[in-house]
């Protein structure tokens, strides 16, 4: 929690230095220049992806990844759109991500609330440690029986993948929510209970709204993780027609391995949604990550 507020004092401490340090207020231009050069490591691969996507097939195969597209064409996007059946993959990925986001927030928030309010009861305390144990069980360890079981109960589909995303994030999310809930004073809740509100109302009308910032963080990470994941859908979803966007990109390695421009257009369409979500929700991404780590 404290880290979220700490990012703000950073500025005021700079102001403090300005007052006391004398002469130290100058911008560190060498460091700035160095960091700008370092951004090339991030920007060049992105530039290549974008410029390749707008090239013609003829230009894309010449091997020069860094040249600007000439002529500029949108053909690769329409081709990628039909080759991967983008609308279908997109809807499936959206379904998986939205289910994972809603599921992760609800399941962990409810569990965390029950655990924190009944911490003195053995069942709830032990449940907490039981859920935390999941941190030590990575997906590869249980993958083979999981693939069998999901097939057995008819969950070898996007819904099964969404559920697995919820499960594997459960430990971390519950930990985040319990830490946050412990900082909410009990008085708020008690006055509401005095007025005759039950646990259900207290949770939905008071606690859940208070958990808002934490839910935003959990939700954004749930979205990014489930939108980008390749391992789980590629192993769990048995019907290739039901695959998510990242898994669909494999066809450019196997079937259409020379249509670089089409492949990059497809990659661009696959990564764009997560980048857009990130750019609009940066604040929660930054604070959420540090909270999670420090807690």
């Amino acid at each position: 929690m404290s880290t979220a507020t700490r990012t703000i004092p950073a500025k005021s401490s700079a102001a403090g230095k300005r007052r006391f340090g004398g002469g130290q207020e100058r911008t560190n231009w060498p460091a700035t220049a160095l960091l700008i050069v370092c951004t090339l490591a991030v920007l060049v691969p992105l530039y290549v992806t974008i410029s390749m996507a707008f090239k013609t097939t003829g230009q894309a195969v010449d091997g020069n990844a860094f040249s600007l597209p000439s002529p500029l064409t949108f053909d690769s996007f329409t081709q990628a759109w039909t080759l991967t059946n983008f609308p279908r993959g997109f809807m499936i990925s959206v379904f998986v991500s939205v289910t994972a986001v809603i599921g992760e927030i609800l399941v962990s928030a409810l569990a965390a609330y029950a655990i924190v309010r009944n911490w003195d009861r053995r069942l709830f305390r032990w449940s907490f440690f039981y859920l935390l144990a999941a941190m030590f069980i990575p997906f590869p360890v249980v993958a083979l029986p999981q693939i069998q079981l999901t097939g057995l109960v008819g969950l070898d589909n996007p819904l099964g993948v969404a559920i697995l995303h919820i499960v594997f994030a459960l430990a971390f999310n519950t930990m985040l929510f319990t830490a946050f809930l412990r900082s909410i004073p009990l008085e708020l809740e008690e006055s509401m209970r005095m007025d005759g509100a039950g646990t259900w109302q207290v949770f939905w009308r008071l606690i859940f709204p208070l958990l808002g910032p934490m839910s935003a963080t959990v939700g954004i990470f749930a979205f990014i993780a489930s939108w980008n994941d390749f391992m789980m859908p590629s192993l769990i979803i048995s019907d290739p027609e039901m695959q998510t966007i990242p898994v669909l990109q494999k066809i450019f390695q196997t079937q259409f391995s020379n249509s670089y421009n089409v492949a990059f257009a497809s990659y661009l369409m696959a990564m764009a949604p997560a980048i857009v979500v990130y750019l609009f929700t940066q604040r929660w991404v930054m604070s959420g990550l540090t909270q999670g780590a420090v807690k």
Partner: protein
Amino acid sequence: MSSMTRPSTRAEVTAPAAAKAPRARKSRVDPLYYFFLFPSLAIFTLAVTLPAVLGFVYSFTNSVGFGDFEFIGFRNFIAVFQDDGVLGSYGFTLAFSLVTVIVVNVVAFLLALGLTSRVRFRAALRTVFVIPMVISGIVIAFVFQYLFSNSLPLMGKGLGIEALSSSILANPDLAWVGIVFVTAWQSVPSAMLIYIAGLLTVPPEVYEASSIDGASPWHNLRHITLPLVAGYAVINTVLGFKNYLNAYDIIVGLTDGGPGVSTRSVAMAIFRGFEGGDYAYQMANAVIFFLISVAIALIQLRFTRGKGGIAA
């Protein structure tokens, strides 16, 4: 940290509760709380505990994933230890994880140091540096696979560098470098944000005091900054190992385990249990993998105890 917050909330809990403690003691738990807790326990038990137990049982059988099977004791485990392919995947995964953890921590710390110093465009720079974190591992691996196998060799030839004139991903001795690079590319942002949070906890007065005493910037870094962010390095190392030991997406996108089996990770070896009919055998492998992961985590947690209370 959670242990830090607990006592304070305890105090808050006991203070108002003391007045009506007798009533609170006697009252039963609202059954609704069980209902709140139930979904998480149910899906966790069905989706993790049950498969884990099944997998453990299967690892002592000769099952091929379906049909009849019989128990064969520790034969799978013994076979795993005699399998050069599996041992090779452990060697690769451990070495790759170790190198990646070091690379990521060094780069992330330097970037964090830069971004917390008096640089211009700080917010914009940070935004750019975080982007790799939100890009799909397999997709960016495909992009880099193109760069490594097409663009880099062209540059290598142009500059006359022998080692780069052919694709590094096709070279069994160099393919891992590409995998470390792309994994680091994707993992640096989260480690960097954690280091930034750590660096911002150092009060500026500390630096002011030491500069008044005539300390050099190097001295400050060595004797103030590094000891104070040591706990954050532990966090990054623990989280890093947890991710890299399960490496899959990026390797599939770059080399798919090749050339040969030189870059096959443990996760990839386990998943092959469904193709090769060696289901029970790979379950034994998964059990061993689980024990090794837990051992590595515990070793790291032991280290943490000595390094301030940040992760404790």
